[in-house]
């Protein structure tokens, strides 16, 4: 079988997996999973970030601890915990998709929390004082004055976090989720003679996806000159 024939046979499988005969897979699954993960993590990340900034120690300390804890262990470990232990609590086997989604939400929420924190702390201090001196409560100051500015400054970081999430979905491979990398390996086992080409195509696909998003983030960063303060530095690079 020539490589052209391989491409001809498997391109659709590469893009959407067995869909519509079977479950969605391939590139489409990667994108769906990453989008869903980040989207669901947004409210949680916002809440955790605010808790970490809050003046109430009883809220701040546990959340800070949780964030440090999750950031100190590999994402893969989070995935394994969800995969092996959630069923023993709930009694039903968790599907690979739900497992991966849950792990991604936990991981993203923690990283988003740090982005929110950096975004708010990057604003000039006098903005908080200005809001509080008008009698706004801490929450009102956050909601009406600080977050609107911070969220705008955070937009490039959010896009970068999306890139990180796309890359992180590849770990689904390890629990047998048929995302892009897994599907490629399946094709490789069937075809067998073109591993170099197949994995180059895999890399290239991720590259096109992630690099163009990185450019979007870069463009946003220039386009949205911060209204005040600075763009928050991403607190860490993207989880792989």
């Amino acid at each position, binding site marked *: 079988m020539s490589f052209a024939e391989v491409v001809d046979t498997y391109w659709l499988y590469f893009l959407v997996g067995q869909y519509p005969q079977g479950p969605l897979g391939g590139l489409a699954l990667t994108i769906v999973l990453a989008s869903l993960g980040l989207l669901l993590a947004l409210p949680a990340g916002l809440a955790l970030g605010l808790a970490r900034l809050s003046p109430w120690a009883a809220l701040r300390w546990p959340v800070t601890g949780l964030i440090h804890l999750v950031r100190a262990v590999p994402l893969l470990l989070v995935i394994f915990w969800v995969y092996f232990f959630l069923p023993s609590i709930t009694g039903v086997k968790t599907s690979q998709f739900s497992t991966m989604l849950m792990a991604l939400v936990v991981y993203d929420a923690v990283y988003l929390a740090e982005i929110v924190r950096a975004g708010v702390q990057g604003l*000039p201090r*006098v*903005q908080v*004082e*200005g*809001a*509080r*001196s*008008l*009698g*706004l*409560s801490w929450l*009102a100051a956050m909601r*009406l*004055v600080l977050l*609107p*500015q911070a969220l*705008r400054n955070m937009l490039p970081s959010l896009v970068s976090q999306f890139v990180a999430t796309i890359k992180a979905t590849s770990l689904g491979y390890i629990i047998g989720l048929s995302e892009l990398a897994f599907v490629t390996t399946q094709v490789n086992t069937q075809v067998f003679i073109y591993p170099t080409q197949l994995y180059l195509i895999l890399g290239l696909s991720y590259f096109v996806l992630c690099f163009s998003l990185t450019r979007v983030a870069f463009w946003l960063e220039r386009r949205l000159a911060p*209204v*005040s303060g600075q763009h928050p530095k991403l607190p860490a690079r993207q989880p792989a």
Partner: protein
Amino acid sequence: MIGFDNVNKWYGRYQALVEITETIARGEVVVVCGPSGSGKSTLIRTINRLEPIDSGRIVVDGENIHRRGLDIDAFRSRIGFVFQQFALFPHLTALQNCTLAPVHHRRATAAQARERALALLDRVGLRDKADALPSALSGGQQQRVAIARALALQPSILLFDEPTSALDPEMVGEVLQVIKGLARDGMTMVVVTHEMGFAREVADRILFMDAGRILERATPADFFNRPQHPRAQQFLADLRSPFTS
């Protein structure tokens, strides 16, 4: 109206306020001056609890304001504070900056707040800039909007921390003009400033601070013509001949 009773404050091991006892009456305009680092900002920021204190009491309108359990937000909404760096909210227009707090505190409906804010912007000479974002305003204009924003809550006291120090010289006058107008209307004000001409003209009283203490309290005439404390004499001498300092 504002009473300090033996107030002390530390930043770590540095004592920024030392045994401050002072009373400021309703309708009084008090100018606080002194060398850099003497504690002027710290003093004025304790009046609306932007800075906590370590001992003593501060009573405003009969209320011990560093008491636990005080509704600090309600309290602050009755005191205006104007910052050296303006602190306008950059994502809101001049008008929205002025209506945000009154609407939030339910002092007024959106329409009423807007009405009042426009009148206040008119008073500071900026009615035509109502829909401008802060970034489109000059420093002097921003500071005038900040004053209008503080006035929108109809405060009983206005506090100014070096309101003209961040301005280019040609804009200082327009801001001082607005503050003078407020003084004429009988507003209770505490103003930290290095503008001695303004102090001489507007202040009822001058407090001179150094190293966290109030060393001299005097009328402008006495302060500028017959300063008592050696540090105050030195301070004024340095002001007159800036090259020796």
